[in-house]
C-alpha cells in the first residue's frame, strides 16, 4: 500500500460512491413523497442506456412497448381530461423513437424521456391505486410494507423483461467525453461527478426553497391536510417518480460507457444506494449522499484487502446504521 495505490483507491471509492449517491438521492426523494422504496430504480437506470444502444443500431427496444402498454393502462385509469397526458406522451414518445433510430443525439433524448414516462406510468398504474385504496378520512393508504412488496415484485418483473428485451450480455455505448483528466479519472468519470454534485444541490434547493418542493413534502406527510390546501397527492407522486426516473436515466446514460450496461447490473447498484439511503434514515439528502460516498470508499478498500468478502462487508454496514436509526427514532414509523 503506497501513495499511488491509496490515491487510486480513494478515487475509485469516490467515483463508485457518487453513483450510489445519485441513486440514493432519487430513492430518498421517492420515499419522502410517496412512501415507496424504489427497488426497481436499478432497472430504470439500465433501461436508458440499453434502449439508447438499441436505437443506435436502428432497432426499436422492447422497453418502448412496455412504456406504451403501461401508458395505455394509465389512460384507462384516468377520467376525462386526465387521459390527455398519457396519450399525448405515449404518442410523442413513439414518434420520437421512430425518428431517433440511428441519430445519437435524438436517441439520447428518446431514451431519457422513455424512462421518465415509464417511471410516471409505473407509479400511476401500480402504486397510486394502492395508496388511494383507503376510505375517506384516513391519511395513508397501503402501508409502507405493502408498497415495498409491490416494488420488489416490479423489480423482478422489470429485470426479467430486461433479459427478454436486451439479452444476457453487456453493451458499451461511446462516452460523451474521451480521455483522462488525471490517472484514474476519465473525463466521463468527471462528468458523472459533476452531475452528481449538481443534482444533490438542485434537490436540496428544490425541497428547501421552492413552493412546489414544499408542497411535495406536505403531500407525503399528510394527504388530507395537503388536499385541503389544494395540493394533489397523486400529482405529487407522479412528479417524484418523474424526477427519480430522470435521475436514474441520466446516471445510467452517463455511466454506461464506464461500466458496460447489462440488464442485471442495476440491482446491485440500487441495493448499495439503499444502504446509503438508510444511513440517512431515508429522510436526509446530504447524509444519504455522503453516506453513499462512504459506502463507495469502504467498498473500494475492502476489495483491495479482502475481495472475496467485499459484498458481505458492505452490506454489514446496514447493521450499525439501522441500530443507530432505531435508537434515534422517537415514534413508530410503520
Amino acid at each position, binding site marked *: 500500500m503506497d501513495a499511488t495505490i491509496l490515491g487510486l483507491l480513494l478515487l*475509485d471509492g469516490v467515483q463508485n460512491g457518487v453513483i450510489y449517491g445519485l441513486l440514493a438521492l432519487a430513492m430518498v426523494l421517492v420515499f419522502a413523497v410517496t412512501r415507496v422504496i424504489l427497488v426497481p430504480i436499478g432497472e430504470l437506470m439500465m433501461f436508458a442506456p440499453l434502449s439508447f444502444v438499441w436505437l443506435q443500431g436502428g432497432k426499436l427496444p422492447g422497453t418502448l412497448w412496455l412504456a406504451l402498454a403501461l401508458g395505455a393502462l394509465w389512460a384507462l385509469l384516468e377520467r376525462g381530461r386526465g387521459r390527455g397526458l398519457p396519450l399525448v406522451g405515449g404518442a410523442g414518445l413513439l414518434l420520437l423513437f421512430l425518428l431517433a433510430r440511428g441519430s445519437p443525439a435524438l436517441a439520447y433524448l428518446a431514451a431519457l424521456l422513455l424512462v421518465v414516462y415509464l417511471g410516471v406510468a409505473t407509479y400511476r398504474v401500480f402504486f397510486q391505486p394502492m395508496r388511494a385504496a383507503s376510505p375517506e378520512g384516513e391519511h395513508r393508504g397501503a402501508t409502507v410494507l405493502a408498497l415495498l412488496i409491490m416494488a420488489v415484485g416490479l423489480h423482478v418483473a422489470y429485470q426479467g423483461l430486461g433479459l427478454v428485451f436486451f439479452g444476457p*450480455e453487456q453493451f458499451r455505448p461511446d462516452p460523451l467525453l474521451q480521455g483522462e483528466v488525471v490517472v484514474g479519472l476519465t473525463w466521463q468519470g468527471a462528468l458523472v461527478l459533476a452531475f452528481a454534485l449538481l443534482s444533490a444541490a438542485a434537490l436540496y434547493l428544490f425541497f428547501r426553497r421552492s413552493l412546489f418542493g414544499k408542497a411535495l413534502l406536505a403531500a407525503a406527510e399528510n394527504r388530507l391536510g395537503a388536499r385541503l390546501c389544494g395540493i394533489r397527492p397523486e400529482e405529487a407522486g407522479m412528479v417524484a417518480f418523474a424526477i427519480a426516473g430522470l435521475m436514474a436515466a441520466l446516471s445510467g446514460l452517463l455511466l454506461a460507457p464506464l461500466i458496460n450496461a447489462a440488464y442485471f447490473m442495476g440491482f*446491485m447498484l440500487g441495493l448499495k444506494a439503499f444502504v446509503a439511503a438508510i444511513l440517512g434514515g431515508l429522510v436526509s439528502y446530504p447524509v444519504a449522499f455522503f453516506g453513499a460516498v462512504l459506502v463507495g470508499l469502504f467498498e473500494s478498500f475492502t476489495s483491495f*484487502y479482502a475481495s472475496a468478502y467485499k459484498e458481505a462487508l458492505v452490506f454489514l454496514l446496514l447493521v450499525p446504521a439501522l441500530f443507530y436509526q432505531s435508537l434515534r427514532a422517537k415514534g413508530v414509523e410503520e
Partner: protein
Amino acid sequence: MKRALALVTFLALAALAQGALKVGVVVSATGPAASLGIPERNTFLLIQEMLDRQGGVAGRKVEFVILDDASDTTQAVRSTRRLVEEGAVAIVGTATTPASLGMIPVVAEAKVPMISLAAGKEIIHPVDAQRFWVFKTPQTEELMARAIVADMVARGVKRVGYIGFNDAYGEGWARYFEAELKAKGLQLVVSERYNRTDTSVTGQALRLIARRPDAILIGASGTPAVLPQRTLKERGYRGLIYQTHGVANPDFLRVGGKDVEGTLLPAGPILVAEQLPSTFPPKRVALDYIQRYEAKYGIGSYSTFGAHAWDTWLILRPALERALKKADPDKDLAAFRAALRDEIEATKGVVGTHGVFTFTKEDHLGLRFEDAAVMVRVENGRWKLERVFR
C-alpha cells in the same frame, strides 16, 4: 405453449409410429443459459431433419423430443422425469452444471443413459452407481486448466495471479487451476474474487499488479469477463492475460474491443476450425458441422455449444445401431436402455468436433486435452489459432 405443442405432437406421433426411437432432449432455450441452449436446440432440429430425409437409424424412425428447462434446475428435473416416463431411450442435456447434476438421480433411478452438455467434472466423476448412467461431451474446466498451464510452461511463466467470479464457476476454476499449477511447479502468488454484477474491480486489480505476476488468469465467462481485463490494462499491467473458454463468444469481442487484444484462451478446436492443421482429427468433422449448420441458420451463426450437441449424436448414433442388434425397444425397453448404455460406454475413437472420444468404465468424458483443446489468441478482433498441443 411450446411445451404443450411438443407434447401433443409427441403423443400423436407416438400413436402413429410404433417402433420409433424417442430421444429426450432437455436444453435451456430461455433464461440466462439461452446463449448455450439455443444453438444446441437448433442442432437437434438440424439432425431431426437429416434423419427424416434418411429414414432414421437402422430402418427405425428417430424422434427428438425437445423440452425447454428455462435454465432452471427444477424445470430440468421435471422435464427429464416426463421424458423418461414417456419412453425415451436416452436423455441428452442440459447445458448448465447445476441442472445436469439435478437430472442425474432421475436417470439413474429410471435406468436411462444420459449424455450431458455441461462442463462440470462432478457430472461424470467419480463413476459411482448413479454416474454409471451418465456421460458428457463438453470439456471440463480441469481439462482446459491443463491446456492453460501447458501453454504457460511453454512460455516460461513462473509467477501467476488469478481473479475469478465469486460463485461456483470461479471457485471451480480456482481450485482446478491451483492444483494444476502446483503439479507443474508454478507459483500462484495472488488470488482475488469479484461478482458478475460488479461495476468496478480497481481494488482487486491494484492488489494483483502489486504482486507482479508474469501472467494472470481471469476465471469468468461472458461479457463480465471484460471488466478485470480492462481495469488491469488501464492500471498498467503489461504481463500475459489468460481467459477461460467461457468467453469464447462474439459478445466478448464486441464489448472488449481493443482492451482484449492479445488475450490467450483455451478453446475447443471448432472455434478456429479453418485454421487447424489438416492432421488434426476434429478438423474435418468440425468443418462439416459448420457447413451444415450455416446452410440452415445463416453464415456465422454456428457456436461451439451447438457443436457439443452434434458430438452427442456422433456418439449416440453408432451406439443405437449396435444396441438395436442386441435388444428390441418395443419388446423390452429396460433391456434396450441398458444395452444402449453399454454401447455408449463402448465408444472408442469417435472423432467429434471438439476432440476424439474414447469412453471407459472410469472415464465418461473420454477426451484427452491434446485433441480437445487448442490455445487461441485474440488478434484484430478475431480468434487466431496460437498453439496446438499434439
